[in-house]
């Protein structure tokens, strides 16, 4: 890809995010699989946990490490994206949530949805790059995606949005042989699924989940459904069932415990304004 100036082309992975993912993956690569989950107290207590979730089309980066070069498996990554979305839907529904997968076709068909999805994805990536370093800060509601999530949820009539990022790295046979002779550790072919769940009321990233699965190049290419199913299962291991309520005794007041009664804010405001005007004699 030759660009006009030295910079990241759209669609290319963000360097900070990729570096963070690589670091995390290196640290846990000894394990065959792992699951991580970080949630706000409100999410655990079911106050800010979305029950009706829209899943944005996942973004997958699939890299094949060859003996010398690396290949971007762009077409194959599309299969991983589709399967990750399907796996998430199936498994979240099994936990009792209502899930709606947003397809690229639906996004391009619905007026106003395309820029909203793009903006939310960009905003999420900005937070994601920070979240990778300090995932525990999710519990303190540190990461927020702002108004775009609220607008999107209102448009889709859901309580929250799930954003999925998939990273798959496959070592070719040549790479495996080289590593063997270099006395390096076994070739790592893995799939990692990262999931961020944003609520519709404040746009806060209420939950961040990550699942990692060791696999093979053959499985990634020929059985993407199986691999994505396994990695997603790991990612959702700590995701509570829809009815489950966990009370966390947090010393820090949770930012997501705001009052959120439905009411009529316009009517309420007008009443308050009239009172003020009467007081001041207008």
């Amino acid at each position, binding site marked *: 890809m030759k660009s006009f100036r*030295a910079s990241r082309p759209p669609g290319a992975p963000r360097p*900070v995010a990729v570096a963070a993912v690589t670091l995390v993956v290196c640290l846990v690569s000894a394990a065959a699989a792992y699951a991580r989950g970080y949630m706000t107290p409100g999410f655990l207590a079911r106050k800010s946990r979305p029950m009706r979730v829209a899943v944005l089309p996942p*973004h997958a980066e699939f890299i094949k490490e060859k003996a*010398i*070069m690396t290949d971007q498996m762009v077409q194959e990554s599309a299969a991983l994206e589709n399967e990750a979305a399907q796996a998430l839907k199936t498994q979240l529904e099994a936990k009792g949530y209502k899930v709606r997968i947003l397809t690229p076709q639906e996004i391009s068909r619905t007026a106003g949805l395309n*820029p909203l999805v793009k903006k939310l994805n960009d*905003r999420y990536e900005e937070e994601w*790059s920070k979240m990778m370093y300090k995932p525990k800060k999710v519990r303190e509601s540190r990461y927020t995606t702002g108004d775009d999530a609220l607008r999107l949820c209102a448009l889709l009539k859901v309580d929250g949005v799930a954003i999925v990022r998939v990273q798959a790295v496959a070592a070719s046979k040549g790479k495996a042989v080289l590593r063997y002779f270099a006395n390096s550790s076994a070739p790592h072919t893995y799939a990692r699924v990262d999931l961020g769940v944003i609520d519709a009321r404040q746009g806060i990233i209420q939950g961040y989940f990550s699942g990692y699965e060791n696999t093979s190049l053959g499985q990634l290419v020929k059985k993407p459904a199986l691999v994505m199913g396994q990695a997603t299962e790991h990612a959702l291991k700590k995701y509570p069932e829809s009815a489950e309520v966990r009370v966390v005794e947090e010393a820090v007041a949770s930012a997501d415990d705001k009052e959120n009664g439905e009411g009529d804010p*316009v009517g309420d405001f007008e009443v308050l304004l009239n009172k003020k005007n009467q007081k001041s004699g207008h």
Partner: protein
Amino acid sequence: MKQDHFRNRPARRTALAGALAVGAILCLPAPARAAGHGEYGPLEIKGSEQQLMKSTAGYEDQFVRRSYRYGSADLDAAITRIGLLLAPKPTDPYIRYRFHVLRDIEPNAFSLPDGQVYVNTGLLAVLENEAQLAAVLGHEVQHTAGHHGILTYRSTRRKLITGSLLGPFTLGISDIFLINSLYGYSRDLEEEADRLGAQKMTRAGYDPRQIPKVFAILMRDPEGESPDFKTFWSTHPALQSRIDYTRAMIPGLTVGVNPDGLKVNAQGFRRLVRRASLDTVQDLVGADYGRTAIDLAKRLVAENGGDPACQIALGDARVALGARAMLGAEGDLTNRDKWKNLKTRVRYTRSERQEQLLETPEGQKNLRKNLEEARQSYQRALAIDPNAAEAHRGLGYVYKGMNRPFDAGREFVTYLKASPQAPDKPVILSELKEINTKIKKGGKGT
């Protein structure tokens, strides 16, 4: 000790010889590397390059799937018209030129080996005229025509093989030369695309004097977050160097041509990209690049002073600037300052950065100033068009920031009544709830 030193000598000699050999090969001047030149005739795709081409084709679909495409038929048609005017005839069956606009704030464009050429909205928004767009497209199509992507792949592969064979003997020193060679090759191709693109655009009737201006535009850094780094580490020549050599080319390009008769088309172009520029301001606001958004919005106001949308965009950009100030002249910031700014953006969230600034008197002063200027912009928009609903929304946020909840609430209610189907209705209702709670609690400003 002496004995050990002696025993290691053959190994050291080998390592040293290897390092010198690699260094000598890779440090040869660019022409002697026999690299950095495109292939403008047919080029056959070899074995491992099939995957490269397959992935390249996949990007077209991926950009659609990921909502990157801007989707403006007018803009796509315009850049296709200009691009096809500048594109050489395809030499291979796998090259088919197609031009698209991507929604991205970064002022950039790029091309792929199979003829896909993309221009970002962030670039269209800052370009001044059609000739500058032709300069960009002329450059990009040369990358495809010269098979630069495929040649870079081949060169990288060859050098990585050499590097992996020689690396162990040179204790890794050869890697530095390898990087120099890879980047140097890429820079050569960029310069070639600049030079050939300039020739092509002049032949097509565009004014080549606009080329250095494009690089000058790209050099702007309103955020103070683009530190300079050595060209050694860059895939592209330094922008100043690109300005210098393209400027030096102009007399040669315009021999026998009346330069004033060449096409520039500023007005028509700016009219064409007006919508994309307004969207870019909103995207810059969304991405928290307030200073860049203000620069662009000011330009839009200067171009279309009577358009309330431009005044609203300027107001939104001012609100987004928050507790920050506009930067002074470029020279006011050192490279270290720019690295520091960049690091702060990467490390802290937006609200954390804002909170840090608001702890200082300067930050509080900046916020007050920006909110006041935003208020004036929204008022100007309402003076032009009293029904400009977005101006009321903007004023709502300004008054909220000024701690005037009744005024803020009044503006939000006006906005909702003027625009009952607004896509951000739930956001505004949520703001109103917060305001109501604040008024009930009787805080300061109520």
